[in-house]
């Protein structure tokens, strides 16, 4: 209860303190309405609005005539030392001459801009935009005014040198920017004026830097080049979005044809690098695009998608399509990815193609060549080398092969196994092991030739091979 007794007064004090602060902030601007009885004309304080060279604001001493601490409280105020930052193409002196011709009453003259059209002249506002539009006969809302209207009142962003980045960031976005197709097509159509110009409405708020946030083809687009560079324009952040066409499920496979037909359009957003992100192995695809560099947008960041053809079993079955059409693989895959598996790394425990622990299953899989081991593994470098170091290889003639460690009779019955799985034999045995029996020049002279042996063609292709067993006495010669 005691605590609550303090809460009420504290709340009151807080509210009062806050209210005082709000009131003080509200009084920060000069209250023209409060002083309406004292100043019959605007020019008494704002002479510069009518006379070129005269001060636009009164002196501090003018205020102190009344606000001396006895008649009225003192105020701390000083006239601005520089014109307010603005992108308006406007001076009071030029406007004053025209308005002076219309009405001699300075209050009315000023209220043409600084008061609502139906308000009291001393209800002073910062220039009322509607009044500007009406006077200049622009029959549209401010942000919906036609392109040609902007330059009536505004200078370009590049010319508005006094605007800070914060000022620029507060520019309101026109309703046109919210149109569904504005960023994809609308903005380009609006921006083009003639063959080499740019719409004034764009230049009012934007500069070239803004366009090059996205446009890879910025140097080739006349409307963009018609804009001056200005880094302040980058406070309006934008980013590339994929056009609607890219959402089509078939776009990935079918984008090549439209890209060839109209590469210029693709080059709006894509660099050579963004093509090469996928088409790494076939850079011809990217030739129609521009390379990334100064003055160009960084380009769309392309992420690879898995084509439908890469089904659930594709790791196991990619061999056939890869051999039938290697170029199509090369469109997306870097050669290094193939080499990860097809040129095995001695220090990789899992070469990639095989599942974890394949070492345990490889004897059976290799024996019947479930897959073609020789596509990736050199039998001498990979198989025989390891088998020799493990004591399985035949380093000391036939009896030195540890693989058949206790199967002495296998030698007498190896014929069928050898013809069925000769690659397995070769992973441990050298030719000399076999020639000890299968040579026509020595040993037991067992004929090794079997089904499909074509001596005539083989001798024609490579007679040296025949001499290994037959010496110079090659049958048939």
């Amino acid at each position, binding site marked *: 209860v005691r605590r609550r007794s303090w809460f009420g007064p504290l709340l009151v004090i807080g509210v009062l303190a806050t209210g005082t602060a709000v009131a003080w902030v509200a009084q920060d601007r000069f209250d023209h309405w409060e002083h309406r009885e004292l100043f019959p004309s605007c020019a008494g304080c704002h002479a510069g609005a009518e006379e070129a060279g005269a001060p636009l604001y009164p002196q501090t001493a003018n205020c102190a005539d009344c606000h001396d601490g006895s008649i009225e409280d003192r105020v701390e105020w000083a006239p601005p030392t520089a014109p307010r930052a603005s992108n308006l193409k406007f001076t009071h002196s030029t406007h004053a001459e025209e308005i002076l011709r219309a009405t001699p009453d300075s209050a009315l003259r000023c209220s043409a801009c600084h008061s609502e059209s139906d308000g009291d002249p001393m209800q002073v506002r910062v220039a009322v935009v509607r009044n500007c539009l009406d006077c200049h006969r622009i029959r549209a809302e401010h942000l919906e005014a036609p392109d040609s209207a902007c330059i009536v009142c505004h200078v370009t962003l590049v010319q508005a040198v006094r605007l800070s980045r914060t000022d620029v960031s507060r520019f309101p976005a026109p309703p046109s920017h919210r149109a569904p197709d504005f960023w994809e097509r609308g903005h380009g159509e609006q921006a083009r004026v003639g063959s080499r110009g740019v719409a004034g409405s764009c230049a009012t708020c934007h500069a070239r830097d803004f366009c090059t946030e996205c446009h890879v083809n910025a140097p080739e687009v006349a409307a963009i080049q018609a804009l001056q560079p200005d880094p302040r324009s980058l406070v309006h952040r934008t980013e590339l979005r994929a056009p609607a066409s890219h959402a089509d499920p078939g776009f990935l496979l079918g984008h090549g044809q439209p890209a060839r037909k109209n590469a210029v359009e693709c080059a709006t957003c894509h660099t050579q690098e963004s093509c090469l992100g996928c088409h790494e192995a076939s850079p011809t695809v990217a030739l129609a695009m521009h390379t990334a560099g100064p003055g160009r947008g960084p380009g769309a960041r392309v992420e*690879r998608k898995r084509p439908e053809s890469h089904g659930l079993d594709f790791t196991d*079955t990619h061999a056939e399509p890869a051999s*039938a059409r290697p170029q199509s693989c090369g469109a997306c895959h870097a050669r290094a990815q193939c080499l990860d598996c097809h040129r095995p790394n001695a220090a990789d425990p899992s070469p990639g193609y095989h599942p974890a622990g394949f070492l345990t299953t490889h004897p059976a899989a290799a024996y019947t060549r479930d897959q073609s081991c020789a596509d990736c593994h*050199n039998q*001498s470098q990979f198989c025989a080398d390891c088998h020799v*170091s493990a004591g399985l290889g035949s380093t000391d003639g036939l009896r030195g092969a540890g693989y058949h460690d206790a199967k*002495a009779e296998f030698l007498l019955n190896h014929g069928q196994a050898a013809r069925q799985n000769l690659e397995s034999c070769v992973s441990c045995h050298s030719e000399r092991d076999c020639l000890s029996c299968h040579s026509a020049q020595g040993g037991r002279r067992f004929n090794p030739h079997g089904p499909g042996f074509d001596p005539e063609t083989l001798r024609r292709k*490579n007679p040296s091979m025949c001499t*290994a067993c037959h010496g110079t006495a090659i049958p048939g010669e």
Partner: protein
Amino acid sequence: VNGLVQRGAWLSIALLGLGPGLAEAQGYRLRLDSRVQRVTYRGLTMDSIPVGDVVTGPTGGPRTPDNFAVRCPPGSTHCFFFRAGPELTGGPLVTTADLTLWGLGISGLSVRMNGRLGLDLDGDETWPGTEPSAQLVEAYAEYAQRQFTIRGGRQLLVHRLGITGFDGGRGIVRLGRSGVEVDGYVGLGLGRATALTPTSPALDPLDEFQPQSRQILAGSALGYRGRRWEARVDYQREVDRDSRNFVSERAALSLNVRPTARWSLAAGADYDLANTWFGNADAVLRYTSPWLTVTGGLRQYRPHFDLWTIWGVFSPVPYSSAEGAVFVRPLRSLELRARGERYSYSDTETQTPLVDVDDDGWRLGFGASYSLGRAWRFDAGYREEYGPGASSHGFDALISWLPTTVLSLTAYGSTLDRPLEFRFNDASVDVVGVDAEWSPTNQLRLAVGGERYWESRDRPDAAAFDWNQTRLHARVTLLLRSEADGFRLPPALRTRPRAGSR
């Protein structure tokens, strides 16, 4: 050592030459990738004892006094057996630089380089692939225009005849907008499936036959690329520079048809003109939709051997297979998969009266993946196969957790039983592993992990020692690229293969 210094000097000159280009190029992409692994495992070592010291084991076979089964060749004074070898440690460290430059002042000109520096930190060269220490996988300049592409330097060809590396030139001409293109290339070939020349000592661990000089590789292709289908005919020959004999001569046909967006047919075959037989051939019909993929196909597999070896004259026979697979995503978070294949070898025309060797086999696998929100992923699979000389069955499971968008933690395990092919007895393997990957920025990726293998061999003698292994690994990947698109690592980087896949 001289060779190493020489290669290092060439690599340095190349990098220095690329330096100014990198500085001036308007576009570049540089991926630096360092990986290190530490592996400890135990191998075999051959031993022998005099025939007189052999004892008879409980099953009647010859053994050593300490219970190792032995082989006693007829007429030999010694019997042979294998003991557990010393514990071996490998520490491969490989740094890969992959660089692409474009915007070099000439429109259409780009430069690509992929090179590796590797070494075995433990110095005893137990791990394959770390010799020689500097390997240039690719390094070429390319000038591409709409109607043609020319390329010079070390490059890889990717087509149905495999992935072939060579040092030379390549030109591709595209005939207007017809979709027809003509491809031709010539150069000095590299060893198959490696960045080394065929004369490299690293390709001769068994001191077998090896060519004395690099072969001339040349080929051409005619292709058509249309909206609904594409086809390509390849011809490629490799000729020994010294003897002018063929190292290989092959042709291939590839076809890919997409009558609708969901259906596709991929088919092709290669023909060995030297051996006058078909090598690999396949045809796969596939239906793909966002929630269902079904494939069915036929294929033949026959290995290819260069003619500087004699392996081809041993007449390797092909196997033919029919396979099918289905992937279903009944829920957005659930994926089910199954795969099966049945294969059969051609007649080997051999006789093995003492053993009964199969000539056909099958394999199947199925599994499921479930995602719980964006953070959790569970995957489990089962696979089984049976065939001549190879059979196994086992489970895999994997759990991935993404506590944040830049960190992933993965734990996995598997268990496998596999009869040791043409050997003594069965083995079983259990594996447990963990991986962690962190991407603190778009340009940096860090990963660490480790796995432990327990392999036990079921045999009745002292050679039933374990083949246990421990592997630890770490990885740093740094991606640098021009600002225009320097926003993230390529999303198309491979993902970890699913458990239960091949």
